[in-house]
């Protein structure tokens, strides 16, 4: 069983890389070439990417490397919504982008230079996390025009056994332009593909991902309470408390 999962994990990586190339070099350019405005093209690409990622999530499940459940999908993807999630594993984003396919996402700059991921991230029109001022402006603009934006405020995968730490960017963006902030709590048991863990160090048993959409947070009161930066600090502290609670008591 262990060796099968090891092989299947390698297979999943290969399928992911191959999928990125096929989508990024063949499918997305074709979708972008079809007539329609910038908006229509982006929606088309994100829909296709979402479908591919859902297929991939089920492929990983079928291959026996993981199981997953995602609660509250129907509350994701609303206009102006900032979706905030913790980031225990490399593959969290596959579930979020797969099941909230209309959303934009803040993605680390390095993925624009990665030979596999560069095509999908640019075709889908995601927001780069660098430089900071452009990130804040682009994400706020996306929210104002009615997109939702997925943000992992830890900025990198969770460091295991360390208290959660959020960069203030997510809160600053939400204070500027979000209509609502919705947390998604991600638990991965046993941990797999965590920060600093090579792909072949697979857990002793199959990993289970539990994603749970939390209660909406209204940024309005924070916004009225103080000037932008102070309000962002307050909201960030609030988010940390909410996540401490949300991750502590799984369903």
């Amino acid at each position: 069983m262990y060796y099968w999962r090891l092989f299947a994990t390698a297979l999943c990586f290969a399928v992911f890389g191959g999928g990125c190339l096929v989508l990024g070099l063949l499918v997305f350019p074709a979708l972008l070439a079809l007539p329609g405005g910038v908006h229509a093209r982006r929606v088309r690409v994100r829909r296709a990417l979402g479908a591919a990622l859902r297929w991939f999530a089920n492929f990983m499940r079928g291959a026996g490397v993981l199981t997953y459940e995602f609660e509250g999908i129907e509350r994701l993807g609303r206009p102006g919504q900032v979706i905030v999630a913790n980031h225990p594993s490399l593959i969290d984003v596959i579930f979020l982008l797969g099941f909230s396919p209309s959303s934009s996402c803040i993605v680390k700059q390095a993925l624009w230079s990665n030979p596999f991921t560069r095509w999908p991230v640019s075709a889908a029109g995601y927001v780069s996390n660098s430089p900071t001022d452009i990130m804040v402006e682009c994400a706020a603009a996306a929210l104002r025009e009615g997109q939702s934006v997925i943000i992992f405020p830890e900025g990198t995968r969770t460091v295991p056994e360390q208290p959660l730490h959020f960069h203030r960017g997510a809160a600053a963006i939400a204070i500027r332009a979000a209509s609502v902030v919705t947390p998604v709590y991600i638990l991965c048991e046993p941990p797999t593909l965590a920060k600093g863990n090579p792909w072949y160090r697979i857990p002793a048993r199959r990993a289970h991902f539990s994603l749970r959409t939390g209660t909406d947070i209204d940024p309005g009161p924070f916004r009225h309470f103080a000037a932008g930066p102070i309000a962002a600090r307050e909201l960030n502290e609030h988010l940390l408390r909410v996540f401490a609670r949300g991750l502590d008591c799984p369903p």
Partner: protein
Amino acid sequence: MMTTDQIRDVQEIYQMIRSALVELFGLEPARITPEARLADDLEIDSIDAVDLVDQVRRTTGRKISAEDFRAVRTVRDLAQAVQRVLRS
């Protein structure tokens, strides 16, 4: 030698930055000296800098470029950067 006009100019800019820092970040006015380092002494990070540059733009109508801002370390550097952009 700077002219009286220019000195007043710098003083005004410095005061504008002081009040922006107090208003935006709730800093104690006493902590804001010309030598105070934005990141190390006043704990203003890159996210805060976006709001600070915005506030300066709202007050002066000019935007400090990201490039100019990168060279800014202290409150005095910032005042000088604002002065440069106002003169250009």
